[in-house]
């Protein structure tokens, strides 16, 4: 009996140990689910001794989770989180500064300014409006061209946008409006917009998916889901408002205190490399390494020039204050708009 158990244990160990020899990296991310698989495959092909274990959620939730775990970090690397969130983590002293091997090719706006940088960018995502043409015609809604248009009462209950407390896309919208219209003008704009919102969603891509399905004709979202859905045949127009687009940088950072720092550095190297940029360019029109991105059919040629001048330091330093104010004004105080 004993022998048999020992034999079984031996077999078990033989089966399990080689697999354990590979380093397992816990990677926190807010990337879209369908992007994870190709990124992971490419990295693991280059580094066969490292395995990625994803923990994915929306930007706000990943940020909150990282902050809550400050004393006992669970993540080794963050791959694909908003730059403004990473700046908050940097202020908390949670990031391990590191200069990846291809840092010199990364655009100056698209990385942390310190040397070595606390975080390094991957690509840029920017606000856009998903406009369902079929429903608009049915309901007699004009196509908006500017942010101001969305405050028009004819859109009452027709617009969905992400909740800035949980979604990075939601926060970039709010911080961009506050920067473009000024604090006072920005809140006044959101007060009017709030009257037209049918729903605040938890995820940044859901508004566009709901617009594509006609559930709500207008979704404030970002360009990636809009392009994907349009390619699948959704009756969408992608509207890039004239006042300028709020944007965020998706970036990579190492967590201080990770027991797998060497493997984590390899991931940071890969994330900033040319190979990774070639993967990112399938999904994004503006990349952290200039000169690689290709123009998207669905977007205008001057797309990059439409991005506003975004003050990330301001956006991350004031994040708590802005979100508290937003929650006070719009979250949980209002009756359901639909009623």
């Amino acid at each position, binding site marked *: 009996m004993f022998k048999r158990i020992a034999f079984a244990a031996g077999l078990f160990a033989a089966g399990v140990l080689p697999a354990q020899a590979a380093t397992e990296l816990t990677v926190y991310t807010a990337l879209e*689910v*369908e992007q*994870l*698989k190709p990124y992971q495959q490419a990295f693991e092909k280059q580094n066969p001794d490292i395995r990625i*274990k*994803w*923990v*994915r959620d*929306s930007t*706000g*939730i990943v940020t*909150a*989770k990282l*902050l*809550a775990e400050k004393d*006992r970090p669970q993540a080794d690397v963050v791959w694909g989180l908003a730059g403004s969130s990473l700046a908050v983590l940097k202020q908390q002293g949670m990031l391990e500064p590191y200069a990846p091997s291809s840092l010199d090719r990364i655009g100056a706006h698209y990385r942390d300014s310190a040397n070595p940088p606390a975080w390094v960018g991957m690509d840029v995502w920017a606000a856009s409006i998903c406009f369902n043409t*079929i429903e608009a015609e049915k309901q007699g809604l004009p196509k908006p061209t500017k942010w101001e248009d969305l405050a028009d009462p004819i859109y009452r*209950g027709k617009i969905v946008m992400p909740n800035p*407390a*949980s979604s990075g896309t939601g926060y970039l919208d709010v911080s961009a409006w506050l920067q473009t219209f000024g604090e006072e003008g920005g809140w006044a704009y959101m007060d009017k917009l709030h009257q037209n919102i*049918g*729903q*605040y*969603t*938890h*995820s940044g*891509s*859901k*508004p*566009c*998916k*709901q617009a594509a*399905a*006609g*559930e*709500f004709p207008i979704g404030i979202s970002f360009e990636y889901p809009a392009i994907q859905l349009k390619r*699948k*045949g*959704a*009756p969408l127009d992608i509207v890039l408002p004239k006042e300028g687009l709020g944007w965020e940088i998706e970036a990579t950072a190492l967590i201080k205190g990770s027991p797998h720092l060497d493997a984590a550095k390899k991931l940071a190297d890969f994330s900033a490399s040319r190979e990774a940029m070639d993967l990112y360019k399938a999904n994004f029109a503006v990349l952290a390494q200039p000169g690689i991105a290709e123009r998207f059919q669905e977007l205008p040629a001057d797309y990059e020039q439409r991005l506003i001048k975004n003050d990330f330091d301001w956006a991350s330093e004031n994040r708590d204050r802005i979100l508290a104010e937003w929650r006070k004004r719009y979250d*949980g*105080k*209002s*009756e*359901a*708009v*639909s*009623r």
Partner: protein
Amino acid sequence: MTIRATVRAADHKGRADLADRLFVNGGQWSMLILLVLAVMLPLLAMLWRGLVGDPAQGGGLAAATELFGSANFRWLLGNSVTSALCVALIVVPLAYGFAYALQRTCVPGKGMWRGISLLPLLAPSMLPGIALIYLFGNQGVLREWIPGNIYGFWGIVLGQAIYTFPHALMVLLSALALADARLFDAASSMGASPWRAFRSITWPGSRQGVFAAACLVFTLCITDFGVPVVVGGDYQTLALEAYKAVLGQQQFGRGALIGLFLLVPALLSFAVDLWLRRRQRDALSGRAQPYHATPQRGRDASFLLLVVTICAVLLGVFGMAVYSSLVKFWPYDLSLSLHNYAFSELPGGWLAYRNSLALACACALFGSVLIFTGSYLLEKTRQTPLTQVLRLLCFIPMAVPGLVLGLGYVFFFNLPANPLHGLYGSLTLLVICTVAHFLTTAQMTAAAALRQLDGEFEAAALSLKVPLLRHFLRVTLPICLPALLDIVRYLFVSAMTTVSAVIFLYSPDTVLASVAVLNMDDAGNVGGAAAMSTLILLTSAGVSLLLAGASRGLLRRSQAWRGAPAH
């Protein structure tokens, strides 16, 4: 010669005694340890976290007074109470009519109606919400039927009404199961109208059940977040706030405070229910004759109409969910395809479904054996203070909503100082939590089956010097097999569909199908959410049918004695 034989017999008897004592005492003490670990300590951890916890995470007394005094909290509480009351007002009368039709009238096809009415138990609570979007959402097929849109108050009320209907129905079915035929005979011979007989016989006999059903529905609604998260729109509730505080903002203290608050209505209604039950215990005397309904065309036809209408609504809702999971691109391309079921395209792929199957099987297997053995040790042994404590502990999970239990587990098992910390995020902990969550109902089923067995069996075993454990395995277990299968089915289906407790406990490796439904809906992949819900529904239904078939076969083969003339 004789002396040696006596010594050997005494020795044998001593060993049998020792084995019995080991089985009974060892079993009872291990039960105590398990129940304290799985029920008591998590609840205490939550109490501690909420009242003395870290203010940075929204806990502590100062945070408690601020939270409970805030306008936002009153608004959330008002929303929760209004919608839950509204659901109870809709569901309880309908379920009463339905139960009355099945127990007190001669409606044809009772088995089928009963089966259909239990459909909502087989899917997670998000499914009615998803179906409502496809039915009454802005692109719903029946869009014109309702003014405004479905997101908000009415979405929550309708979704939760469907979700809680079978729960209320089961309580009312048992409340209306027994009646004394002699009372009805007396009433009709005194010339009382059927309405009068209802008012003075049926209603007093069943109103405690009505109260219990209303409390159950109210508690289920106030602690459910599956429906509000899908169709709530901006109408927010307390349960949703607890869910957002913990998962969205990692405000554990705030979550604990709301959890504690949600415990209040559950405990209150539970206490009142117990008190009422004690008052009404002796309503049915030993000489009562079971009431059997006689056909009455007008009454039967109108109740048939009610039953058919409710079943049609349920079939419509669930049919819609299944249909929508098969549609290619709602609402612009209605051709059918299976692409919503291509879970392998998502990260984790089919992992969530496989995990749910593993969880459900483990809960059904270990849970049923553990609960049945535990009930045996409570019912068939000498009553001591220890058994009284164990009975009380077995009762607690019924009064604790899943959301609250799940939060308690987070606080208790995530303590760095806890030696069981390693379990956090594992499938083992999910199994423990799920079994603890559904313990009371399963234990009551086992106890009811065991109480039907005469204590003489144990006396006979004792006089034949058969060890109690062998008697339990060879006699009690086979006799009670149908009840055991019932428990297996209940635990399996509950584990497949539960979200409220496990949502706080899963890790990337142990994500569950019901959690995947929630996450897919969150990301806007409503088709995928409908597909995964449908898969859960089909699995639960398939396993239920299989077990029902097995139970029927067993009854015919090994339980023939039940039909034999007694006495």
